[in-house]
C-alpha cells in the first residue's frame, strides 16, 4: 500500500452529543491499511464513542467519514461490517457453548445467507484463519474451556474470517499476562504485514506501543495529541491523557522497628502452591507477583480463607487464624479486595452507600433493627475520605467509573478497620489518573500502620507501591527483592525467566 492511496478510514470533524453533553468534539482521525494505531484516553475521554461511531452502533451528529476514500452517509453495523470494520469487544462476544470452529465461522456463514449450516465449510474457514494468524487451537474445543488469550484469538479469527480490514480492539491486554501480550503482539505484526489495520483502544498502552505506528490521545472528547508512536513513552502518554504529570514515587522507607503483623509459614496446597512463608510488618506494603498460573491469585485467596490450604499456619499479631474460613479471617482483621471486583467484590445494581455499608451491618445491629442513620453516615464518611466521585450515594455502583468502583470496595473494607489488607490487582481496568490516586491511598494506609499485600503483574505499580516483592513461579516463592533494589526491566526478567 502506498501513501497515495486513500486511507482505510478517514474521519473529519466528527462530533457526537448525548443529550446535550459533548462526548466527541470535532475529531479528525485516519488509519491506513497495515497500520496499527493506539487510541489512548482515560474513561470518559470519548474513546468508546469513537469506536461506536466507527462500528455504526451510534450515529454521529456532525462530520464526515470516508472508507477507502468513499464518503459514507449514516453508518449502520451492517455497513461498517461490509466495509471490513470489526470491533472486538472487551468481553469478546463469543458463544461459550459452541466450538472454536463454529465461533470463528458463524458470522461468515450468517452473512452468506444460506439456510443450511455447513459444518465442513465452517471447519475449513476456521482452520484457514487460525493458520493465517499462526496459532494452534483445537477446532472442536468449546470456547468456555479456553484460556482468555485463546478466546481473544478466536475473536480475532472471527473478525478475519469476515475479511476484516480494520480490527478495533477494546482494552485488548487487560486480561492478559505479559507473555500472552507478547503472543498477541506477534499476531498483530502478522496481520499488519497482511494489510490489516489495527486500532488499539486502551488506557494501558505502554505494552502495545511497540507495534504501533501512531498514537492518538483523546481527553474530554477532544483530540489532544497525535504523533508517531516513537515520540511517546509511558510518561508522555500519561501526561497527554490526564493533562498533568502523574509522578510515581516509590514508598517512604519502612521504620526499622516496625513490628511483625502477620506471619505465614509452611502454607501448601497440593498442586497449587508449596511451602509459602513470609512476614508482613505493620506499615509495610508487600508485593506478590508472578505469571498467570504461578499461584499468586490462589495464595491471595488462601490468605483470606477463600481457598483452603492443606497445611501451614497464618498468624496475626501472634494469634493463629483458622485456614479456609473467610468469615473468621475477616473477623480477625484481614480484608480482601478481589481482582475481579465486578463479579466478586461489588453488588453492581445496589447503591454506592449500600455497597460500603454492607460490611458494617453487625456494628450497627440494634437488636432486631439497624441503626440506619449511623450506618449511612459512616458509609458517606468513607466515600468522602477516599474521594469517590459520585453524584448521589443512592445511585447504583454500576454507574461509577472503574477507579471509583475500586474505591468503593476499598471503602467497604476500610470501614471495618482491618489490620491487613490484601489487594488483588488493585488497578485492573482503572484509568491512569485514578490508578495513581489508588497508589496514594495504598501508601497512606501503610502510613497508618496497616499491612498491605498487593498482588499484581503490573510491574510499575508494584515498584511504585511496595517496600518488598515476592516473586512466585510454579507455586513457590522464587525470589524476594527489596523494592529499591530493582527496576522494571530487571523485575520483568525475573518474572519470566
Amino acid at each position, binding site marked *: 500500500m502506498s501513501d497515495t492511496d486513500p486511507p482505510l478510514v478517514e474521519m473529519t470533524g466528527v462530533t457526537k452529543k448525548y443529550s446535550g453533553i459533548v462526548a466527541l468534539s470535532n475529531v479528525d482521525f485516519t488509519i491506513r491499511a497495515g497500520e496499527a494505531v493506539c487510541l489512548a484516553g482515560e474513561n470518559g475521554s470519548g474513546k468508546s464513542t469513537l469506536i461506536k461511531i466507527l462500528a455504526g452502533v451510534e450515529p454521529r451528529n456532525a462530520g464526515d467519514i470516508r472508507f477507502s476514500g468513499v464518503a459514507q452517509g449514516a453508518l449502520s453495523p451492517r455497513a461498517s461490517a461490509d466495509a471490513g470494520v470489526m470491533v472486538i469487544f472487551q468481553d469478546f462476544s463469543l*458463544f461459550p*457453548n459452541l466450538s472454536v470452529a*463454529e465461533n470463528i465461522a458463524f458470522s461468515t456463514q450468517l*452473512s452468506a445467507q444460506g439456510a443450511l449450516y455447513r459444518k465442513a465449510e465452517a471447519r475449513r474457514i476456521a482452520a484457514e484463519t487460525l493458520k493465517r494468524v499462526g496459532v494452534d487451537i483445537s477446532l472442536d474445543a468449546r470456547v468456555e474451556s479456553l484460556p482468555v488469550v485463546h478466546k481473544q484469538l478466536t475473536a480475532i479469527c472471527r473478525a478475519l474470517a469476515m475479511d476484516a480490514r480494520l480490527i478495533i480492539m477494546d482494552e485488548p491486554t487487560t486480561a492478559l499476562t505479559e507473555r500472552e501480550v507478547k503472543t498477541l503482539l506477534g499476531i498483530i505484526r502478522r496481520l499488519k504485514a497482511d494489510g490489516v489495520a489495527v486500532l488499539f483502544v486502551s488506557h494501558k498502552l505502554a505494552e502495545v506501543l511497540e507495534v504501533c505506528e501512531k498514537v492518538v490521545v483523546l481527553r474530554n472528547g477532544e483530540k489532544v495529541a497525535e504523533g508517531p508512536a516513537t515520540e511517546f513513552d509511558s510518561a508522555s502518554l500519561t501526561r497527554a491523557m490526564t493533562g498533568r504529570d502523574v509522578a510515581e514515587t516509590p514508598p517512604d522507607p519502612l521504620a526499622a522497628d516496625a513490628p511483625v503483623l502477620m506471619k505465614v509459614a509452611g502454607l501448601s496446597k497440593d*498442586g497449587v502452591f508449596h511451602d509459602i512463608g513470609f512476614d508482613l510488618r505493620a506499615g509495610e506494603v508487600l508485593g506478590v507477583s508472578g505469571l498467570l498460573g504461578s499461584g499468586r491469585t490462589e495464595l491471595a485467596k488462601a490468605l483470606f480463607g477463600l481457598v483452603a490450604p492443606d497445611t501451614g499456619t497464618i498468624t496475626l499479631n501472634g494469634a493463629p487464624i483458622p485456614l479456609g474460613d473467610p468469615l473468621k479471617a475477616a473477623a480477625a482483621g484481614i480484608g480482601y479486595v478481589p481482582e475481579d471486583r465486578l463479579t466478586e467484590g461489588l453488588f453492581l445494581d445496589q447503591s454506592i452507600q449500600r455497597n460500603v455499608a454492607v460490611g458494617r451491618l453487625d456494628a450497627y445491629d440494634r437488636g432486631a433493627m439497624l441503626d440506619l442513620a449511623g450506618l449511612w453516615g459512616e458509609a458517606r464518611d468513607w466515600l468522602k475520605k477516599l474521594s469517590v466521585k459520585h453524584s448521589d450515594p443512592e445511585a447504583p455502583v454500576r454507574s461509577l467509573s472503574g477507579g471509583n468502583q475500586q474505591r468503593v470496595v476499598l471503602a467497604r473494607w476500610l470501614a471495618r478497620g482491618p489490620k491487613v489488607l490484601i489487594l488483588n490487582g488493585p488497578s485492573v481496568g482503572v484509568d491512569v489518573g485514578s490508578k495513581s490516586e489508588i497508589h496514594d491511598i495504598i501508601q497512606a494506609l501503610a502510613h497508618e500502620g496497616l499491612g498491605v499485600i498487593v498482588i499484581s503483574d503490573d510491574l510499575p505499580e508494584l515498584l511504585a507501591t511496595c517496600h518488598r516483592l515476592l516473586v512466585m513461579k510454579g507455586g513457590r516463592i522464587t525470589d524476594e527483592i527489596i523494592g529499591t533494589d530493582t527496576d522494571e526491566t530487571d523485575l520483568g526478567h525475573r518474572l519470566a525467566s
Partner: protein
Amino acid sequence: MKNINLARNEVLVALVILAFCAFAALSDPRFLSIPTLTDLLRNGIILGIFSVGAMLVLVSGGIDVSFTAIAAFAMYTTTVFLLEYAPGLPWYVIFAIAMVLGALLGCINGVLIAVFRLPTLIVTLGTLSVFRGFLLTFVGSKMISALPPDMRGFSRMMMVRGTNADGSFYSLPWAFAALVIVVVLTWFILHKTMLGRSIFAIGGSDESARRIGIHVTRVQFFVYVYVGALAGLAGIIHASMSRLANPFDLVGLELSVIAAVVLGGARLAGGYGTLTGTLLGVALIVLVQNSLIVLGIPSTFQSITIGILILVGTGLPAWQAKRAEARAA
C-alpha cells in the same frame, strides 16, 4: 476414568436405565420381553414429543411451562370443532388443524417473549393459566368420548403387533412414528440449519448473537411457535390414543417433561441440550412411571423416585464440576 464418564448426564442416565432394567428383570423375569418394550415406547410418545420441544426452548436460553396447556387447548378445541362442523375429515387434516392451533398459541408466547422481551418463565406461567382457563370457560369442560371417526381410526393403526409366547398381545401404534419424525426433524433443524445453530448461539449469549447480526427476535419467535405446534401434535395424538378428549388432561405433565429434559443434560441457563440426552431422560422417567407398578411398588413412590433421580442426575455432574473448578482455582 469412571469420574469423567459420570460427569456426562447422558452416560449417567444410560447407566441408571441399565441398572433399573437389571433390577426389574431380576425381580420379575417377564420384564425383559417385547410387550414391556412396546409398552415403554408407546408410553414415551407424548412425553417424548413434549420433551423435544421443551429441550429446544431450554437450548435457546428460555423455559416454557405452557406447552401442556397449549396441547390440551389445541386437542380439545380441534375435537369440539370437528364434531360440530366436519366430523369426517381424515386424521392427517385433523392433526394439521391441531398443530396450527398450537402454533397460533405459541405465537402469543413468541410475541410476548421475542418482541416484548419479557422473562420466559413468567410469560409461560401466565399463558399456561390463561390458555387453560380460556379452554375450560369458553370451549368446554366436558369429557368427549365420541371422537371423530378418523381419530379413533388412527389409534387402531399399528406398526407392529403380535402375540407373545405366553399368549399376551403386544402392539406399537403408528403414533410412534410421529415421535420419530419429530426427533429427526428437530435434529435436522438443530444441527444442519443456521436457524438451529442460531438457537444454540442465543442460548450461549444473546448479546453476542445480536452483535454478530443474528435476528434474535425471529429465532426466538420460531422456537415458541415450533414448540406450540409440537404441543398441538402431542395433544391430538394423546386424545386419539386414549380415545378420549379430556380438557383436564395433560396439564400437570410439564414438570415431568422438564425433569426428563434436565436429566438428559440440558442446562436451565441455556445453550446446552442434546436429543440423545433428552430421549434417555424420557426413557428413564417412563421406565420409572411404568415399572414401579409392575414391581409392586406403590405408585406414590414414583414422584419420590423421580425427584431423587433429578437431584442425583443433575446434582452429581454439577457438584463434580464445582469440585473440579475449586481444584483448578
